[in-house]
């Protein structure tokens, strides 16, 4: 069987019930979709199949026969980052980075399908993606900004609005 992987036709050697996740990682050498749980629960294996986000750990490779599969490598690279990728860098939306490629896949699909910058809607759209590091806030900030903006300053990062930094009252130190 064959499918289109990031613009190139690839032929599959693995048996048809092998998960697309295993085929991508072990046969095709594309390691951006991660084995986070292999149970369909964490979303870290998500790629676009015919433009829609899909969990590859639950997809037998036979199911993508003739389909087009897009991983993060097919969206953008370090020389040409997409708006969503740039926004994630600019908003400090990744910490350990393990959930990030899949998160960006779903965020991209959400925006391409006309998703709004409303934070509650973004939280709902991304609820299938587990992130343990960020508390999700900066991911939501990044996606909201990428709805309307396509270029971001990559030399600096933007805070969550309303965060305040203050200097403590100076201490009057005595003795000792």
């Amino acid at each position, binding site marked *: 069987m064959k499918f289109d992987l990031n613009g190139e036709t690839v032929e599959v050697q693995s048996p048809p019930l092998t998960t697309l996740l295993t085929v991508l990682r072990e046969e095709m050498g594309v390691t951006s979709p991660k084995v986070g*749980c292999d*149970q369909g629960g964490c979303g870290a294996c998500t790629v676009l199949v015919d433009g829609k986000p899909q969990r590859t750990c639950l997809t037998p490779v036979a199911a993508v026969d003739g389909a087009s599969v897009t991983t993060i490598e097919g969206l953008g690279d370090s020389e040409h980052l997409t708006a969503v990728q740039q926004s994630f860098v600019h908003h*400090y939306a990744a*910490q350990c980075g393990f959930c990030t490629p899949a998160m960006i896949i779903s965020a991209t699909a959400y925006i391409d399908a006309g998703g709004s910058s409303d934070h509650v809607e973004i939280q709902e759209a*991304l609820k299938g993606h587990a992130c343990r590091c960020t*508390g999700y806030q900066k991911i939501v900030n990044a996606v909201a900004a990428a709805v309307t903006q396509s270029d971001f300053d990559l030399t600096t990062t933007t805070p*969550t609005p309303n*965060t*305040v930094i203050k*200097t403590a009252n100076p201490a009057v130190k005595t003795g000792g």
Partner: protein
Amino acid sequence: MAKHRGFGISSIEYPTGMNQNGDPSQAWIKVKPDGRVDVFSGTADIGNGAKTIQSQIVAEAIGVPYDWVTFDNSNTDSSPVCTGTFASRATFVAGNAVLKAAKDVKQKILEIAGKEMEISPDDLEIVDGEVLVKGAPTEKLGVADVAVAATWTHGVLMTGTGAQLNEFAEIVDPETGEVSGPPHAAISYAACAAEVEVDDETGDVRVLRLIQAYDVGTAINPSLVEGQIEGGALMGLGLGVLENSYPYYPSTDHRGYSIGSYYMPSSEDMPSYETIIIENPSADGPYGAKGIGEMANNGQPGAIAAAVHDAVGVWISELPISPELVLRALEAKAEPRREGKLVAFDDEKSVNTVATGISWTP
């Protein structure tokens, strides 16, 4: 059959560094022939941003642009000892090691520059990758040129090393717990206020809002500090209302085995975060920094428990504050035992009630 709002607060403290210290971190730095800086540190980056923070410290301490710094923490052959990324020590202890290494290599750069410029190194400084004469900044020599000179004129490899080890604090008397010195590298403080909404029919507790203030010493990278605060807040929320490895504790039965049967917070569990970062520099941290990573998930459960009491009038002293616990508490409407001066809550859970081999009297 109603939802009730409640508000509660907590204030906490947390140490930086391994308890009782004695946890070394070391680093070494070399300068490439074109002036770029290679840092070898043993500190793992678990998402906390060790690679970022230590590169910032080195860039600042030497005086070169951030993107001149290459950071290698990848293996134990080229990197020296770092006890590890835990105990909130990566910024303070490991950061101090790279800071010392950076100051050390800066001195080597200034010495070569001094020879090239025929000026005492004491009269030189480095700004944005250029060696300048203090007070006469038009006289300059690029760090890149200094590196060329070191490599091909002077035959010198410019390196710096640094090690940080806070003295181990012995327990001098195990009967009292007295220690020989501060058992931490620094102490941070934080406070948290939580607003919750409790449904008295389902027992569900929604955390709507978390106001949090953290003293981090110095925020070396404020975005990174916020990331810890926001991430820690949601982890604290999970500890407070959602998560339990043993839902039938103390039994080991019926454990959650998937993301779904174990209730890890999702994006829909987010409260609104209001974050206040307070800079109260530490005496010995790099640029006054203190740790933040762990403390970030400690303040929420206490504030949430108080907020639940404010909302529906019951104290839950177990975690997580699950719907079952809320409903049982609403049903029981338990009052503490009052005897003279004594006000005793939770008698039924005490060792005095449950155990025969250990007891405890006020």
